[in-house]
């Protein structure tokens, strides 16, 4: 009759041994929470999912005009809109995931204080929601490629790997901010700032090749640099070069960020219901 062969033990200071088993048992909740957020997002909107397309397209147009048209920055031999959009994809995903994720625990406060489930489910589904938007705006990239008759090289096959890195980066930063936000609501104001600031310090509107060689490693301390450069390398092909030391530095930081995020989140998770 019992689902657990061994009795479950609840004790102070002891993170339940069944945590990862529980996470698996609640796997459908990832799906349901993400599904709820997606359903709710476009309820009572006239054009619905089109919003997921309009926002990145408008930003891309602005960036193309400002950086490509007015500032005349180099485009590494690809159409500037494609250059911008191949970076816009991972950046928008990261930015959306970060803001959704950092607010996820607070906007689900009623759930947290009334029902048990592994709390990791909540921020993860927030990232999944942003991932769905990411896939939708991927359509725009395909349309742009078709418009400019741009044929990607074999490198496009490595794209899933970079998507994974983007996912881990978003999760890592998101977990930190979600857990911190429960305790210190200051992060509600910090996150929009990070996102706004990040857009300019990440190579979204321009190629990172304009950064002087001597400073590239320093620039790579921004974890999104590795992700965005990876995306460009995979999508644009041709002369685009991947600055490897910088890429590994970025990726290493992403992994650290994620591991730290999971650890911090797990450590504070048990007090969420009392503090939120």
């Amino acid at each position, binding site marked *: *009759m*019992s*689902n*657990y062969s061994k*009795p*479950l*033990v*609840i*004790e*102070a*200071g002891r993170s*339940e041994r069944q945590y990862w088993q529980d996470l698996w*048992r*609640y796997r*459908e*909740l990832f*799906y*349901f*929470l993400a*599904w*709820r957020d997606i*359903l*709710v997002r476009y*309820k*009572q909107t006239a054009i619905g999912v089109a919003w997921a397309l309009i926002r990145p397209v408008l930003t891309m147009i602005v960036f193309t005009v400002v950086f490509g048209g007015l500032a005349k920055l180099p485009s590494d031999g690809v159409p500037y809109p494609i250059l911008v959009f191949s970076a816009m994809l991972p950046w928008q995903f990261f930015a959306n995931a970060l803001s959704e994720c950092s607010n996820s625990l607070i906007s689900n406060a*009623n*759930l*947290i*204080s*009334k*029902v*048990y*489930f592994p709390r990791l489910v909540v921020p993860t589904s927030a990232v999944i929601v942003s991932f769905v938007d990411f896939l939708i705006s991927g359509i725009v990239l395909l349309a742009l490629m078709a418009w400019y008759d741009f044929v990607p090289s074999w490198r496009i096959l490595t794209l899933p790997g970079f998507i994974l890195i983007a996912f881990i980066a978003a999760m890592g930063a998101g977990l930190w901010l979600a857990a911190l936000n*429960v*305790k*210190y*609501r*200051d*992060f509600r104001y910090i996150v929009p700032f990070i996102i706004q600031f990040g857009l300019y310090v990440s190579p979204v509107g321009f190629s990172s090749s304009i950064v002087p060689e001597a400073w590239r490693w320093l620039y790579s301390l921004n974890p999104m640099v590795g992700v965005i450069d990876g995306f460009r390398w995979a999508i644009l092909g041709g002369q685009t070069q991947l600055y490897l030391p910088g890429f590994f530095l970025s990726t290493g930081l992403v992994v650290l960020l994620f591991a730290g995020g999971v650890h911090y989140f797990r450590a504070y998770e*048990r*007090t969420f*219901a*009392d*503090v*939120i």
Partner: protein
Amino acid sequence: MSDVIVQVENLSKKYILGQQRQERYQSFRDVIGRRTKALMRPFRKSSTKKQAIGEEFWALKNVSFDIRQGDRVGVIGRNGAGKSTLLKVLSRITEPTQGRIGIRGRVASLLEVGTGFHPELTGRENIYLNGAILGMSRTEIRRKFDEIVSFAEVEKFLDTPVKRYSSGMYVRLAFAVAAHLEPEILVVDEVLAVGDTTFQKKCLGKMQEVSTEGRTILFVSHNSSAIASLCDRGLVLDKGQVRAYTSSMEALSLYNNEINQNTFVRDRELNNPHIQKVELDQDLLEQGTLKVNVHFESPWDLNPPIVGMVVSSLYGMPLFGTNPRIHTKGFQPRSMRSGIATMQIDHLPLHSGSYKISIWLGDNHQDYDSITDALTFDFISPQFMANLPSVDIIGPFNIPAQWRLENDAQYTVYA
């Protein structure tokens, strides 16, 4: 023992009041400020720390008890006795400060009706969402979907967003999902206080059905008759500690002794004839006798003083009234200034439930004083029957009657 399904040992839960009450969340600035202060005054670190921690509050203190398979435990106690904290710790929402709980089996907790319902989603979508939140798998929900819908009586509105539901429909749907969980241990907080009485009865019935299937129930309620009819064990909590863990009847009467307002004392002096104090004899009440003493005072002689009394339901519906002019037997009128009027009803003909008493004072000519709802009491009938239909259906009165079966000669063919 092998059939112990929940074992709680020395469970304690501490809250820090400063954190819990005044500022529910800390601001980053405060922490930075405190840390800076601590840095600047390294030698007074301990005092700063103490200040930061605030007042401790033990919501639970050394609570120990065992629950066996199939027990239906009612958790009783005043507001703030730690009932909800206990349920929260048991359902793993919050972690204990000390102590240990061993649980064999899946726990489903229902601490609030409709947790996780999203107003924008339709009834159908919310059933799936809520089911998943409560720990049901998609196939499980699909299997029970029709049952849930018919229990909630919302067939027609399945594809309407729940924000357009009436509050009754909302609650029905929410309870229906939770009621179809199939855990070994069901933890329920005061959720039946919502919805209309018919639905409350349906919920209680559903819980009774669940309990007859051998599942274990932990139930918090302020409704004594709900506990009396559903539970067989009672856990009385007081200020975070276990006062008693016995049969539900004993636990209820222990609790009622404390909680009920069975005395009323007027706190100020009056220059008119007035009621000073009203007392109810709790010991006699447990034996089925309602005995009330009314102390009255007057600046002049009342000839005779007349005290009247109305017993009403908890909802304020008057049930019966009495005074010495109606029930004259044994009453000897005389002139008095102050004294005690005693009223006694043997074999109080009421079913178990909560009742209120209002008192009136006057004489043959005029009214002087009246106290509406002076006392509240919980009556547990000595002839308590577990299968009694709800008082909301059969009414509060327990009027003795005789029943008999006979053969009808006209139709008896096989006799």
